[in-house]
């Protein structure tokens, strides 16, 4: 009885899903293609890493503090005009190798929201190490108004919020180009509208951020590194990887001894198991 009901129920589900299959197949045949062609399918590019990769790649990779400091400088001098970094406090910068006095000076260079101690009115004051990076716009409406109706997203977690995020930020910053002629011809709707910029790494190909890094020596690095656009893009991508995952170095440093110990313990456990089972082995060994 159970089996009879089971077979009927099984045939019911099968019929329903095959019916959906047939209707789907009919649509595909009548339209003559599996899925409609879109500009994104044809022109979107997957992110790639800078030549030589990032210092923090792989199981042994770690941050290059010199590079993180350069990346921070790019963020401070270029990106911070539009993008916040709300999960990062100035005190965190000590992890990049700045000493306490330097962190104090960096913090003091930013104006953060404050309260006038006499009148209680909202004002701004110089930042302190315990403050977080301030938002460049008072609210979303102001951010939109200044940026062609797009909100510049917070960058703290950007490299974890996109597939292959570090490579993505690098590719995006170095990937601006003119919209290809075929795109304009085949998908006029996807050609960049007013105030939008073509970038094949961006999900829908056109974004409201004008190329932020445009000229060599846009920032002047203190450590003598030549500030090409490619270099600045790598550095800021590395810095944003740190803002998203400040514990990367510690995580890998912890991981190796843990794995080493587990390997040792597992080998011991294996030997113990062999020992215990020595008298129970069958013909198959």
């Amino acid at each position, binding site marked *: 009885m159970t089996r009879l009901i*089971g077979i009927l129920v099984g045939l019911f589900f099968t*019929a329903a899903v095959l019916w959906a299959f047939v209707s789907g197949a009919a649509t595909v045949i009548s339209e003559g293609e599996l899925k409609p062609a879109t500009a994104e399918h044809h022109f979107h590019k997957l992110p790639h890493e800078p030549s030589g990769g990032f210092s923090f790649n792989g199981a042994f990779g770690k941050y290059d503090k010199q590079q993180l400091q350069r990346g921070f400088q790019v963020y401070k001098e270029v990106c911070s005009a539009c993008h916040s970094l709300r999960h990062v406090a100035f005190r965190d910068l000590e992890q990049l190798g700045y000493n306490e006095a330097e962190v104090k000076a960096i913090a003091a260079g930013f104006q953060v929201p404050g309260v006038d101690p006499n009148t209680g009115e909202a004002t701004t004051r110089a930042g302190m190490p315990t403050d977080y990076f301030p938002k460049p716009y008072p609210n979303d409406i102001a951010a939109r108004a200044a940026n062609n109706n797009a909100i510049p997203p917070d960058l703290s977690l950007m490299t974890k919020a996109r597939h292959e995020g570090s490579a993505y930020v690098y590719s995006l910053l170095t990937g601006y180009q003119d919209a290809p002629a075929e795109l304009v011809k085949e998908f006029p709707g996807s050609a960049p509208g007013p105030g939008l910029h073509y970038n094949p790494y961006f999900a829908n190909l056109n974004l409201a951020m004008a190329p932020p890094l445009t000229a060599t020596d846009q920032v002047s690095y203190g450590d003598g590194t030549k500030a090409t656009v490619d270099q600045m893009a790598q550095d800021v991508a590395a810095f944003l990887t740190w803002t998203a995952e400040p514990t990367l170095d510690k995580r890998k440093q912890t991981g190796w001894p843990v794995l080493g110990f587990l390997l040792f313990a597992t080998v011991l*456990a294996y030997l113990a198991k062999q020992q215990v089972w020595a008298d129970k082995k069958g*013909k198959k060994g």
Partner: protein
Amino acid sequence: MSFPWANQYEPQNPLMKWVDDRLPLPRFVYNAIGAGYPVPRNLNYFWNFGVLAGFCLVLQIVTGVVLAMHYAPNALVAFDSTEHIMRDVNWGWMLRYAHANGASAFFVVVYLHIFRGFFYGSYKAPREMVWLMGVVIFLLMMATAFMGYVLPWGQMSFWGAKVITGLFGAIPLVGEPLQIWLLGGFAPDNAALNRFFSLHFLLPFVIAGVVILHIWALHIPGSSNPTGVEVKGESDTIPFHPYYTAKDGFGLGVFLFLYCAMLFFLPNALGHPDNYIPANPMSTPAHIVPEWYFWPFYAILRAFTADFFFIPAKLMGVIAMFGSILVWFFLPWLDTSPVRSGHYRPLFRKFFWFGLIPAMAVLFYCGGAPAEEPFVMMSQLATAYYFLHFLVILPIVASVERPEPLPYSITEAVLGSDDNAELKAAS
């Protein structure tokens, strides 16, 4: 209950004797996972996953309880409180990665545990209750993991909650009010987040309770084994301790090694990047996908793209998705072959390896892929096979198949001969 030749508990030290006389907990443990539990001597490594699943449950409870000390279940601050755990709490990043990857590890282990049951026919009499409790545990785990994923309140948290609770909206008549009642609003918000947190905290302990029933039920007939032949005599079994404690210890080592490799070197590989974007009801992600362990069922849900007579496509998908797990409850009565193990069932084995496993692989792949062709058509064919396999093929195979000869006993399977078998043959 146990076999008559099981070792009896004899307290070695006076304290244990004192306790055992008043509260026989030491005896209970001894009979459950100690030398007092006789187990078939021929279990292979697939029998390690039950103990590993128990370990995962404990791991999730321990890491979860500590996370809950720092997490704030309020829509305004939930996302930031998770980042606070990652950045400011001592070893918080490790806790959170341990818990998130622990959920994945739990599902890997449980899927292998279920797979073992499918192949070796562990669900058959007299172990139906063990199997039924297992399916209940699996359903509870799915609910727990779904609600846990909502807690960090990222984009996938929010939109996942919206899509899944939206499924209830497909139920005729009561669907919409039910959905609003479940969420405490028209869309996931603070009310939903709070109740999800409360239930996410509660359910693992409910799971722990059902796990006890699962093991209790198992200890009535004792474990099955790869031959599927029941224990016939003392030479077929060995005490759980030290033999299987040693083997499980080794298995645990391998498991922990792989798990820690993920945790420390690829902690976000199984997660979705969108969940690092704070929940935003105004912006729908390009592709809403659940966590990997739900992909096969998500593929079944989305395979029903056309109305079937008077049943709307969406409702059909919801029924099929839940149905795809509910059929497991009926498995002991659908597969009526008296032979348990797939080793001795030639026809069953063919459908298992060349039907069910490929269909599951396709469903898994398509569930993670965007809802476009050719993935939808692929999941439709795989879904059709899935239901055919459990509901039509298994009952028919069970009645037409001619199983291969079974060994007389476990001992014979292991050693090539069994004194009892020879005695029997001589008589």
